[in-house]
């Protein structure tokens, strides 16, 4: 059944239909609607779950670690400063191999205070071993929460489902609610092999010297690489059951494209329109939307971008001193490859500045008209 709901609520409903059992969360703009709705859902019995209203984001994810460690499916959501405060516990969830799903509303980092979107908060967590999904629509937010649990609970790593502040979180649009019975079959109950259980007592996380820690970290990398196949598998299965297929990336009008625009989140969504308009002008351009940032889709990047003439990448983030983060990662995936295309890295939309269809068309046209990028970081739209 379809409803018109905002992105925040898509996150809450995603958690609801995934039958999460413990929620621990702390409010932060623009995520507050997520926790408010979940509080009502728990209160009126639509979801049989314990909701711990913790005193900080650090404690939110810590409480989730405790709950997940005893075998309960757990959920939390946060944004920007809250995600940064959780950083230590994201490492903890990964090291303890706890499949917690964390909704993150992309919001720029303060100071100065800002509540508008960019990707620096979530991307700052890229080295922790937590999976990262970037949604372009409220429908994808809801669908991805369910898929994230299915993947996480098999690889035993936490997942982050990311949506833009306001352009998704507070934007209402039509969302189809998957049938609960089908979701229950698609996503079986969480039943971990090892957990905190007095009947079979174990200690988790004891002091580990150089003779063992190296191997434990190797296994985490093994698991996150396995996640690539699982993400495609579960995305395909989701398509068969619910009619919407998902993968590591989304290809849009790329078949004969000489120039491919690489983008993510709502900028990628807007880019569909820019691509259509430029196609009408006879320009052979296509869009590659990166849906999963960790594990990074290097294989798809090589398969779909090698041999193209030009690549333009839009980053709504900046790794100070080096440039856009998607650009860096795409470059590194294409390195060591024969006929890897020239690549223009654009940084735009920082701090929630709107990125319009015109802006994206300008980016593509600039790329077409120049024979090579003048600089590593091509700022677009900043008043200099």
């Amino acid at each position: 059944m379809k409803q018109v709901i905002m992105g925040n609520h898509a996150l809450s409903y995603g958690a609801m239909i995934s039958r999460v059992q413990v929620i621990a969360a702390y409010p932060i703009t623009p995520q507050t609607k997520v926790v408010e709705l979940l509080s009502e859902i728990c209160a009126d019995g639509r979801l049989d779950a314990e909701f711990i209203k913790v005193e900080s984001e650090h404690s939110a994810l810590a409480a989730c670690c405790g709950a997940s460690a005893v075998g309960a499916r757990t959920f939390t959501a946060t944004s920007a400063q809250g995600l940064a405060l959780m950083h230590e516990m994201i490492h903890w969830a990964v090291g303890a191999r706890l499949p917690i799903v964390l909704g993150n509303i992309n919001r720029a980092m303060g100071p100065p205070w800002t509540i508008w979107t960019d990707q620096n908060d979530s991307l700052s967590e890229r080295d922790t071993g937590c999976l990262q999904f970037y949604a372009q629509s409220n429908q994808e937010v809801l669908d991805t929460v369910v898929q994230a649990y299915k993947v996480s609970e098999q690889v035993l790593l936490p997942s982050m489902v990311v949506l833009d502040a306001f352009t998704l979180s507070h934007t209402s649009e039509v969302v189809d609610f998957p049938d609960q019975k089908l979701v229950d079959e698609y996503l079986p109950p969480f039943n971990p092999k090892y957990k905190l259980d007095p009947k079979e007592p174990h200690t988790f996380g004891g002091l580990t010297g150089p003779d063992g820690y190296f191997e434990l970290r190797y296994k985490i990398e093994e698991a996150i690489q396995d996640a690539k196949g699982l993400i495609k598998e579960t995305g395909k299965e989701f398509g068969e059951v619910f009619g919407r297929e998902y993968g590591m990336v989304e290809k849009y009008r790329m078949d004969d494209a000489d120039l491919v625009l690489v983008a993510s989140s709502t900028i990628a969504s807007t880019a569909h329109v820019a691509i259509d308009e430029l196609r009408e002008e006879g320009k052979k351009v296509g869009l590659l939307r990166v849906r999963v940032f960790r594990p990074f889709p290097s294989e798809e990047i090589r398969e779909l971008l090698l041999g193209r003439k030009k690549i333009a990448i839009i980053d709504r983030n900046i790794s100070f001193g080096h440039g856009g983060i998607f650009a860096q990662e795409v470059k590194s995936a294409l390195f060591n490859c024969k006929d890897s295309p020239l690549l223009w890295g654009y940084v735009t939309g920082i701090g929630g500045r709107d990125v319009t269809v015109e802006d994206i068309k300008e980016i593509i046209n600039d790329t077409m008209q120049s024979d090579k990028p003048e600089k590593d970081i091509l700022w677009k739209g900043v008043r200099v």
Partner: protein
Amino acid sequence: MKLSIPEQELVMSGHLACQGCGATLCMRYALKELGQNTILDIPACCWSVIDGPFPHTSVKVPLFHTAFETAACVASGIRAGLDILGRKETNVVAWAGDGGTFDIGIQALSGAAERNDNIIYICYDNEAYMNTGIQRSSATPYGAWTTTTPVKHFKKMPKKDMMGIMAAHRIPYAATASVAYPEDFIRKVKKAKELKGTKFLHIISPCPAGWKSLPEETIKLAKLAVSTCYFPIYEIENGEKYTVNKVIKNARPVKEFLSRQGRFRHLREEDIAKIQENVIGFYNELLKKAGIEEEVSVKTE
């Protein structure tokens, strides 16, 4: 032969504690009463190491090692998980040192206490950051040497009154105990086990390395801490009903406690007098709160 404490042992030999470590006895006594149906979560502290390296452990109950600030909130999470999974009978115990309780973990503890989450929080207090080599914490007493309060600048602030803070949260039960009196400590663990809501136990646990005391005198010091009123033993119910256990009528001079520890060797007479005054002052306040009229005096034989 009737034992004064339960015979079952849920802590095993081979653990890595120093010779004469009070903290191992605290755990041994607590688990004797808590029993097998218990889950521990332990933040950074001596016990993070005492339990032993991966893949070994010295306790017979599940133990979740966690980050320094999170003893209480991880316990809240464990409790919520167990409750939703229908395992409400399992004891959930946050087990932390003084640093993880008085300093870095106090926010999470206050959060759990304010929510009255059904957990037992036990702080074994050796009065400094011992696992990292004896740095001062807010549980370090006035006058003490630590590596961060050198003798010329010994700790000027008094020990933080954690029980007062927990009383202010109106939690159902808070109590202090001493590792020298396991019967009393175990009675309080049992009481905590049977109450719902947040229970806080604060047990003084001498540390030979950090207090610069003899390993064999750990129990002797834990007794002197009580008999000198340095560490009063009492209970607070719902933040208001005070009960003083082992009421001390005339206290042994606090010097007897201080003099057996190298961390106080530098104190001059006037420093010791100041400590004596504070110790007796606090204890008299406590007696008043417990409705006990007469005041304690210091034995001067």
